[in-house]
């Protein structure tokens, strides 16, 4: 890792360690990844913000259908561009050490496309369409699928999933924690 140890002093690293689910070495590794996205820019200004397109060139995000949502949720200006601290926040939530309930909260926000604090039919459709990519489902199938999901998860029958309902349905799906991870 060479000179990157000197990028942060020990106190800063200590602080990051207390605010994220990472250890010092992992934080430095995350920084290395962040720097790789645009080395000259980051070297010039460590606290600068990288554009959403640049952030999305991270391989895991590039392949991820929800990449734009992820950037927006984790960007502190909600515009999609990220500073190193935003990036660190994101990687911390996706890390193995982050507990399930933290992951669930962010998953909810990622899937809540219109930011209205509920997963409505529109949001669910968006989620499914992003998941299936080019292999879109037929309209009938899509409707049926959304209805099935709501039937399973929408406990108060208001046609949308609130956070409590989302969390409840996720607790029935043990694969969630494992799938909602990105390796540092």
């Amino acid at each position, binding site marked *: 890792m060479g000179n990157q140890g000197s990028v942060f002093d020990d106190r800063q690293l200590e602080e990051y360690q207390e605010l994220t689910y990472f250890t010092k070495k992992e934080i430095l590794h995350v920084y290395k990844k962040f720097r790789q996205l645009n080395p000259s820019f980051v070297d010039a200004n460590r606290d600068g913000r990288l554009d959403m397109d640049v952030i999305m060139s991270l*391989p*895991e995000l590039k392949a991820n259908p929800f990449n734009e949502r992820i950037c927006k949720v984790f960007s502190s200006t909600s515009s999609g561009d990220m500073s190193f*601290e935003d990036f660190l926040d994101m990687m911390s939530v996706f890390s193995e050490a982050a507990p399930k309930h933290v992951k669930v909260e962010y998953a909810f926000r990622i899937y809540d496309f219109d930011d209205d604090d509920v997963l409505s039919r529109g949001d669910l459709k968006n989620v499914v369409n992003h998941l299936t*990519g080019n292999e879109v489902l037929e309209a009938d199938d899509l409707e049926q699928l959304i209805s099935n999901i709501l039937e399973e998860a929408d406990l108060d029958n208001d046609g949308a999933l609130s956070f409590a309902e989302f969390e409840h349905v*996720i607790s029935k799906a043990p694969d969630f924690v494992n*799938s909602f991870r990105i390796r540092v």
Partner: protein
Amino acid sequence: MARYSDSINSFELQTVRHNRDSLNDPEHRLAERRYSRGGENEGISRRRKKRANSFASGTLRIRRPVLRQDEIEQVVDEIDNDTPDQPVALQSDQIKEQNVPMSAKREIRRNLERRQTTTRIKKPGWFRRKKYDIQMQWCRFKLWTADQFYTIELWRSHFRTIDGHFGSDVGSYFRLLRWIFSLNLPVFILTFSFLTIPQLIVRNLGNFDDSQESVTCKFEHPFEGPEFLTGGGWFNQTELYYGCYTKEIIQIWKGHKYDMKYAYFFVCVAYYLFTLLRTAYSLQSSYKENFIEAEGEIQAFYSARVFCGWDYRIAHKETALLKHKTLSTLLKESLSKYNERVSNSWKTFFLKTFFRILTNVVSLALIGASGYLVWYISDTQSLKTDNKFLHDMAMPLTISALNFILPFAFSIIASFENYSIPQYALYFTMIRTLLLNAATLGVLVYFWFITVNCDQLEKKDENWLNAAVDCKPCWESFMGEQIYRLVIVDFFFTILFTLFSELIRFLVHKCFKSRIDKPEFDIARNTLNLIYSQSLVWLGTFYSPLLSLIQVIKFFVLFYIKRYSLTLFCRPSSKLWKAAKTQTFFLLFIFVSLLLCVIAVAFSMISLKPSQSCGPYQEFNTTYQVITEPFNKWSGKLNWLKEIIKLITSDVFFFLILTVLSVTVYYTRIIMNAHFEVVRLLKHQLHNEGKDKQFLIGLLQNNSTGSSRHNNSNNSNTRGNYTENNNKSSSNKIHVIQNRHFDRDE
């Protein structure tokens, strides 16, 4: 409405409370979520409750770049109230949980710090301060070790590549491989440092307490080469096997003695205990996470597919495209199943059952036949040849061949069985394979126990055994040697299997590009192979203490072979793999195999006579006696202690413990039944509350439609009067019910 009452049935407490007064009014709902989040989560876990309290209204707020000062103050207050007088370092978990950007978290943390240095009036007492000190030290130590582990974490970059290219399902095979590898490493360190090193000291320095006839294994055979495969000859004189460990007391330096008999016994007990506990712990936590917590009346099939469908570790375009396709097909398939209800006539049911009984009989027959084959070959030595090498390797080759070829037959059988859920076919194949492994190894070990041990052989009526069998003077070493062969042959079979199933298929794909695809990585079969080869080691470690070293080397090489064969020849899987639940099954299989091995080894320790010409227990009737004998010989003062120990080692005590355990199990069962009863009652109550709510909604809807109708139909008097009356009565009812609800809330 019908659907409504359905969902109400399985509703959980906190969501009912949450929704009871929110009804369908969106504004109400939003306001309620903003302001009453703190109290709504009772009845989940303590931790969740704590979190909800610690940041009322926090979790679902639209994120702002910087929190207002008063909001920060509020959060700080809550954290401080939750964990009063704790140092900030211990409150970091709560800070981490906040759903705000880093800058806000930092602000919260600084505020907490400032408050603790300036405004805290009450200082915690000495005892508490010490407690926090220790906790902080512990936290720091944990972070430090995690930091160190990050540096030495094995194969990290490989895992990144595997996860990125093939998804985390294939990655789970490699993680299991690494887990078993890491299980063997401490065992090797234990046996090497406590058995092999003292033994090597003895061999080279020869400083015995009692310097009569000393080293049992003098180097007589030169090392030739084929021993690597057969494990015989030269290896027989080394510390690889039980036979070479001394029965003497070693004098390490003046006055310090090291008794190999006890060392050997306790090291064995320690590593079996260590592996048992570690496996049981993993199994327990995995089971809890994936089965107990995920159980419930609500089946979240579609939600799970959609919300957990994407594997966030995928980092490759092609894999991502394939994943889209897989998910799409899977959803389409399950939806089409939803549309056409399968007719379940008696005839198809009967046919299905008959067919499944038949397939089970066939697979059990196959398993039984392979068990018998192993017995027949060992008993009659029918594979005897003049070539010594072939003669030695005949049995391991047969067993490995059976264990590699029959699973293919099982998966073909399972495909005929036509299960509605593909996962079942997998589970059945896995169980059958495990049975096959257990049967072949079990027969072999039983055969060894009764024949190679001269003492056992004398006891038996020899008529039913073939004359070809002869007993071995050092049967423990013999068993170690045999298991060594099995381990090695299994290794070569794994490599061959990889070559055939992955490389050849890949080459075929190269020739006919369009027609035949690259092979997929078969997670189940590969994992079962891992379990089989590990159970060999568990079986053999007592007879060959350094077998764990062989296993460590084997798995190390295997990782690279599998990893490169995967990335070079395979393609990402197009099937969806239920990783979490299958992982629990694998752990269960590992645990069962381990348990069987421990039982076999414990049996040989407790009831078989050790060889009289080699090994640490030459003078004993059983290995176990090494523990009981000192007490029998004991003539010291503490006679009562002797009595107690006698009692503890007796059969009566064993049965006493068994009885106590059974009573405990019975007691837990009763409590569990009581809990079920409570759950049933609570569900009933929820059902009633759901009806309450339904009634309320009905009234409200009635009310609103009624009043609009009232406004629109001033002309029609009779109708108007009717609605007015209706309105009055319904609003009265609502009033009463609302009062009731408020009472309850307060």
